[in-house]
C-alpha cells in the first residue's frame, strides 16, 4: 500500500477527535437552521451577491456556513500535529520508514479529507434550504470543488505553521481559535463585504476566507463576477505560499 495512504489512514484513525468533529458540524448546521431563518426576518430584501443577483439571507448564510467547515477542518491539521508531538508519535514516525515530507503531506491529505467530507455533509444537510437556489453546471462544480480544496489547503497549512511555532497544545488551541475567529468575522461568511463599513470592507477583501466563500457561492449560484478569476488565482497562489511556509516550518521542528 502506498506510503501516503498508510500514513493518511493512520492520521484519520489515530488523531481524529470525534467529539470536536461533531461540534465542527453542529456549528454550521446551527447557523443554517437557526441563525439564517432568525436574521432572515430582519433582512427581508435579501443579500446582493452580484449587482444583478440577490438571494434570501438564509440561502446566503447557508452557503457561507458550508465554507465555515473548511476553516474548522483546517484547525484539525494543527491538532493532529500537536497530538503527535504530545504523545511522542512525532519522533516515533520520524524514525520510521518515511520522510518528513511524507508525514506532513499525510497530515494535509487527512485534513483535506476531513474538510471536504465535512463540507459535503453540511452541504447535504443544508440542501433543503439551498436546493431551490442552486444550479449545477460543470463550471459551478469546478468553483465549488476549488473553493473547498484551496480553502482547506490554505487553512490547514496555516494551522500547521501555527502549531510548529507555538510551544504547547494549549497555546495552539487558544491562538488558533482566536485567529480563526478573526478570519471568520472579517470574511463574507455572514455578510457581504461590499456592504460593510470601509475598514472592515478592506480587511474582508484581503481575507482568504472571503475569496473561498465568494468562490463557493459563485459555484453554487452561478454568480460569476469579473473579480472571481482574480480571487481564484490569488487564493491558489496564497494557498501555495502558506503550504510552502508550513512545509519549511515543519522541516525545521527541533526534536526535543
Amino acid at each position, binding site marked *: 500500500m502506498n506510503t501516503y495512504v498508510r500514513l493518511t489512514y493512520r492520521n484519520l484513525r489515530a488523531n*481524529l477527535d470525534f467529539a470536536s468533529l461533531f461540534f465542527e458540524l453542529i456549528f454550521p448546521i446551527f447557523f443554517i437552521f437557526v441563525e439564517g431563518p432568525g436574521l432572515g426576518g430582519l433582512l427581508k430584501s435579501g443579500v446582493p451577491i452580484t449587482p444583478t443577483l440577490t438571494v434570501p439571507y438564509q440561502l446566503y448564510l447557508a452557503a457561507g456556513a458550508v465554507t465555515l467547515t473548511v476553516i474548522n477542518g483546517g484547525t484539525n491539521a494543527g491538532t493532529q500535529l500537536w497530538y503527535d508531538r504530545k504523545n511522542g*508519535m512525532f519522533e516515533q514516525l520520524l*524514525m520510521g520508514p*518515511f520522510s518528513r515530507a511524507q508525514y506532513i503531506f499525510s497530515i494535509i491529505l487527512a485534513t483535506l479529507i476531513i474538510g471536504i467530507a465535512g463540507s459535503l455533509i453540511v452541504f447535504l444537510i443544508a440542501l433543503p434550504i439551498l436546493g431551490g437556489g442552486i444550479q449545477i453546471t460543470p463550471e459551478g462544480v469546478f468553483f465549488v470543488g476549488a473553493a473547498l480544496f484551496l480553502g482547506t489547503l490554505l487553512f490547514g497549512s496555516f494551522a500547521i505553521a501555527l502549531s510548529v511555532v507555538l510551544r504547547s497544545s494549549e497555546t495552539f488551541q487558544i491562538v488558533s481559535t482566536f485567529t480563526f475567529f478573526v478570519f471568520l468575522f472579517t470574511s463574507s461568511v455572514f455578510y457581504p463585504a461590499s456592504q460593510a463599513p470601509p475598514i472592515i470592507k478592506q480587511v474582508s477583501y484581503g481575507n482568504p476566507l472571503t475569496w473561498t466563500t465568494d468562490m463557493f457561492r459563485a459555484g453554487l449560484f452561478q454568480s460569476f463576477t469579473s473579480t472571481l478569476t482574480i480571487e481564484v488565482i490569488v487564493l491558489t497562489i496564497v494557498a501555495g505560499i502558506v503550504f510552502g511556509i508550513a512545509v519549511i516550518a515543519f522541516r525545521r521542528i527541533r*526534536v526535543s
Partner: protein
Amino acid sequence: MSTEIAISVANLEKRFSDKVAVDSVNFEVKRGEVFGFLGPNGAGKTTTIKMLTTLIPPSGGSASILDYDLRTQARRIREKIGVVQQQDSFDQGLKVEKCMDIYGLIWDMPANERRKRITELVERFGMDEFRKKQTIDLSAGQRRRLQVAREFMHDMDLLFLDEPTVGLDPIARRSVLNYFKEKVEKEGLTIFFTTHILEEAEYLCQRIAIINHGKIIEIDSPENLKRRFGRAKAVEFKLSEGMSAQLSTELERSDSITKIVQDQENGSYKISTLKPELVIPEVYRISDRLGLHISSIYVSETTLEDAFVSLVGNSNEEIVRQGAQS
C-alpha cells in the same frame, strides 16, 4: 554484501550551541550482539541514539548503520531499524489492538501477518486484560508494555532500546528482557540498549560502553568491567549483641580495610576491601577480643554497579582535575 558490523561510529559529535552533548565517540557493534550504552543522566546516551536513528543530524564525525551511511542513506536505515524511545509514544485515539494493527500497517506489514503478531505479542507481553482498552486509559506500565510490544509489529535488523523497561514491574521487566534475548538468539537481532538498571545490562548485554560527559570512557564485557573496575568486594556481617562503636573504631585502624559502613536499621556492618581473605580473620580476632559474637558473615561479590560507579566517579574526578589545571 552485508558485513559483520551492524553499527560503526567514528568521531561522532553533537553540539547544541556551545554545549558538546556527544564528544567524538568511536565504537562498533557486531551483528547479533546486544550492546549496552550506559551512563549517568545527561551523559549523551539519548542524543547518541537520536543521531543513530537519524532523528537528529550529527555535528561531526561519521557512522554506518547496517552498512548504510548515516548522513546520506537515512531513509534506508530507518527501513531496517526499530526504536523504543525513552519517552512515551502512543496513538491516543485508539484501542490497544488497533494501535498495534495501525503501527504494523504503516510499516506495510500484510493484514494476516499483523493479526498473527498481535495475538502473539498480546500473549507474550501479558496484555490480554487490556487489549480492548483505549491507550489513553492505560497505566504507565501498561502503556510501556504496549510501546515495546508494538515495535515488534514489524521486521527489523537492529533495535534501539532507550530505557525500555521504565515503569515496568519486575515480572513484566523480566518477561520483556527474555523476549529481547529470544529475538537475539533465534533471529540474530542486534540490540543497542540503554538503561539505568545495571542488572538488566548485565543480564542482556555482551558488551557495554560507558559514556560520561559525552565521551566514552570504557567498552568491555560486563565480566571484564567488574573485574577491572569493581575493585572492592564487601564483607558483610552482624553481631549477636547488635552494633558496637568500639568494634568499628578498631576495624577502621586495620590496613586491609578500605571503608566500613554501619547499617543501623539492619544492624549490620559492610566493609569494602580488596582482600576479603584478610578481613574476615581480622573481624573474628577483634570481635573475640571485645567479647562480641558474630551471628552471620559473608562476602558479597562486586557488581556492575560498583564498576560503573567507580568508572564514572574516576571520570568526574579527572574532569574536575583538568578544569582546575586549565
